[in-house]
Structures are given as C-alpha cells and as structure tokens.
C-alpha cells in the first residue's frame, strides 16, 4: 500500500470531472480526508477475489421491459416552470463553448 493514495493534483482532476471547485485550503483538507478514506478502501486488497464474480445489483428482475406504446404525460408546462431560465419553450443556459462535452 502506498503512503498516500491520492495527491492534491489528482483530487483537483477528480473535482474537474465532478464539476466541483475547491479553494486551496479546502483542497488541502479534502485531499487529507479523501486519502484517509481511500486508505480504508484499500484494505479490500487483502481479500483474494480472483474467482469472484462482481455483484452490481441484487434485483431478481430480468427483462423488466415496457411495451412500445407512446404516452405523453403532458408535463411540459410544469417542467418549464421549474426551469431557472426559459424562453420560447426552450431551457436557457449560458453559452456553450465550442468543443465542450460530446
């Protein structure tokens, strides 16, 4: 096990993936906290799981599917009313810079 699992720089990278920002002192504190938690996480390394299948859900359900029937719930007006900014039935957001996202 390494002494520190995560560096301040890595924490900053993870924060950017999660769209969070921290000031320097918060970043330092978070790094310390995350590191001690990740140290607990790393105790899992003690367990041999070579032939163990992962469990991602305990649901027994299989093929829980919906028939392909359209049903408009007519929620548009209520949904748009909750939007912080809206214009002409569209949700308004600050300009998207070219090359962002997908």
């Amino acid at each position, binding site marked *: 096990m390494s002494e520190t699992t995560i560096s301040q720089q890595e924490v900053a990278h993870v924060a950017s*993936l999660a*769209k969070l920002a921290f000031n320097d002192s918060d970043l330092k504190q978070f790094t310390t906290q995350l590191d001690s938690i990740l140290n607990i996480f790393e105790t899992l390394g003690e367990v041999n799981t070579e032939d163990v299948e992962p469990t*991602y*859900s305990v*649901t027994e*359900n*299989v*093929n*829980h*599917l*919906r*028939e*392909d*029937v*359209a*049903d*408009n*719930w007519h*929620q*548009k007006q209520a*949904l*748009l009313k909750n939007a912080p*900014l809206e*214009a*002409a*039935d*569209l*949700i*308004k*957001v*600050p*300009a*998207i810079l*070219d*090359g*962002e*996202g*997908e």
Partner: protein
Amino acid sequence: MATGNFETTIGLEVHVEMQTNSKLMSPSPVHYGDKPNENTNVIDFGYPGVLPVANKGAIEFGMRAALALHATVSPFIRWDRKNYFYPDNPKAYQTTQSQTPLGTNGYLDVTLPDGNVKRVRIKEMHVEEDAGKNTHGTDGYSYVDLNRQGTPLIEIVSEPDIASPDEAYAYLEQLRQAILFTGISEAKMQEGQMRADVNISIRPFGSSEYGTKVEMKNINSFNYVRNALIFEEKRQAEVLRAGGIIQQETRRYNEPTKSTILMRVKEGADDYRYFPEPDLAPIVIDQSWINKVANELPKSAGERQNEYVSDFGIAAYDAEVLTQTLAMSDFYDATVAAGADAKRAANYLIGDVNAFMNKHQIELQETQLTPEHLAGMIKLIEAGTISTKQAKQVFEAIMVGEDPEAFAKKNGLVQISDPAILLGWITEVLDNNPQSIEDFKGGKDRATGYLIGQLMKMSKGQANPGIMNKMLLEELAKR
C-alpha cells in the same frame, strides 16, 4: 488505397435513430418536428427520483439491425452509464451498452465502385439513448430542447477494414440501405436520423502498427464524410512527409472550405466513468425471442432483387430501382400480390409513380396511391377494358385516391371489344362511305384512316382499336 506511400485506415461509428413509438427509457412519444419540449416528461428532464424502464420495442428493433448485419445477438445484456455533463444530456449520463453490446461480430458485404465486393466487419452494435438538441444563440445563451432526448439509437461500430474515402462512402450508403430494409428507421440524413463518427489514420505501407487516429463526430451527410476523409488523408500525409507527427485530436468538417478544423487535442482517453446502470434490470435474450424477431424482419434488398429478377423476370437494373427504399419495394410486392402483372407494375412504379413523386416532392407513402388501386388499373389494361391511352387519365385519378374501376365507369373510359357491336358499326360506316371503299381498292391507304376516324367518332372513342382495325380490314376485303 494509397496516398503517396501511405495506406489509410478508417473506422466508422454510425448512429441510427430507431423509429419506435416511445423513447428508450420513458414512454414519451418519439416524433420529429414537434414544438420544443413537447414530448418530454419528468424522466426525460432527469428529475430527482425518476427511474428508467427499457422499451421492449427498441430492443427488438436493435435485434433486427443485428440480424440484418449478421451479428451475434448477445444472450445477456446489462446496461451501462456513460457519464458526462452537457445541457442536452439531462441526467449527465447516457444509458448505453458498453460492456455487453446487443450485437457483436457482424459484417456488411459492400459493393465497391469497381464492382468488387468487400466484407466490412462490424465489431459491435449497441442500443443507447440519443441526446436532446442545443441551439446556440447569438445572445450569449444556448437553448435546450429535450424532445429528442432518449430516442433509441442503434450504434454500429465497424472494424478498421475501410481503406479509402470511397469505400467509406460505399459502406455508408449500403449500410443505410440495409438498415432501411429492417424497417426500424427511414434513416433520413437531413433529419439527423443517421449520423457518423469517423476516425482515420494513415501509416507507411507495410507498417504493422496503425497510425494515430483523428476523430470527427456527428457528420450527417455521406458526401461530407467522404470530403472530410479525402481532406484528412491528404493533410495527414503532408504532415508526415514534412517530418511532423499526427496528434490524437478531434476535428470538425467544414463544408464551405471542404476542409477539417481542429477542435481539441485529446490528452489520454476521455474519462466517461462507465459503470453498470443499477436502475435497470438485465435483459436475457433466448433463441425463441431471436426467432420471433427474425420472423418479423423484412427481407433484405438483395433478396428482393433476386426474387424480382428470377420470379418476375424484371431487369436487374429495374429490380435495383424498386428496392431503393423499403416503402417502394413493399408497395411493389403488395401491388403484385393484388393481382397486377409484375412487369407492368414495375414499369408504372419506376416510371409514372416516381415521376409523380419527384414532381410533387413527396414520398410514396405521402401519395394517396394504394397497391390495390394500382393493381386495379393494371388489371383493367390487361383485360383490355381500358386502353393504355385511357389509362393515363385513370392514373391521374388513382394518384389522388380514386378507385380505378369506378373512375373509368363514371367517365365512360370503357373500351368496347365485343365483335358483334364492332361489326355493326363497321357495316354502318362502310355502307355510308362507298367512296372510301373505292379508294381503298384503288390502293389509297389514307382511306382506312378516314374510316377509322368515323368509327371512333361513332363509338365515342370506346372501340378497342386493335380489334377494330383487324375487323375493318377483314370487312373491306369482303366488299
């Protein structure tokens, strides 16, 4: 194919919107062209507490595509989340099938411009959600419409088998046709129903390692894809010849200049943090389900062409024209099934019907023509009930939804072939025109023309000209 001393490797990820009734994970309608956000609900808006339920119809449409492309349908599918923030992606994750794609190991046999056939292998196919639409204003804002959000897509990922822009073009065209004939999408390019992500790399001939890939996303025209690839092939070769290196980057095709523009350089792989979607149950597909879908799968264009040539005696070229769209081919089949002569039906569809569609700029299904009406008209012609000349009028009528038989009757468009009636008219005309008989006997061919004119007048144009001609000559000979 070579560019200088380089060979080109192209990979395509094609997204096709599947025209189900409802969205992949919500029951909102899938419908193009509606008012903004009309087809949205709390699920599409990614509200707190909502849950997805997968659409069986979308799975089955995906299975159709997989079967049509000879892919293996996975017996077990678990959905995955692909995480990224964007306003057209309301949950900030896209539900997809990264670990267990619906289809794997398929192929498409592509006829190249030189007539050779090349097998392009398909690595995998997944069903996933489409994103909404962002419109970028000039006012410092962007505007989000989530109508398209959640429309089911089938993503078709090719192996790097494509070696030139022309091959890529041929692959896309033939892939589109293959998809069309599954009945899952009209794959209209202008409506964005089919889009391609393209990657291209070049390497020196004989090199065992691929070059660095450059990516271009979301191109919705096959011509643009070809142009973009032609430009990239050349640009990359120039960079390498000048001793430069190709960077792993995303570029954008710019049509006015027919060139590509750098968008961003990739630093390592994107980190989408894929993981199994815990809100959805897995899907298990057994052979009986596959068989059921296979039975519903329409025949491919190739199968149909072969049948038209061998069973109906249609020319190969005409068979190709008839199978350009599933709608045309289905219409043709229905017309023949309704009793029309196969060759005549083909001629009408390829000729007059196509001309009508072009003239009015509409699709076959937007006309009021039905296979029954087209077959009805052809049967009237075949039976000699109407002449081909009269058929022109009937055709106009059936294109606007009229019944051919009723129309012909109403307008007196009936051809009289009964020899007894015809003989009566001929006798009367000959009796009244002794001079014409003289002229005929004197060798003046013009005389028959005059007599026929008189006969048509008398029959109000309803006399069957073929039979009448023959009988007139017989009667003249008797005089």
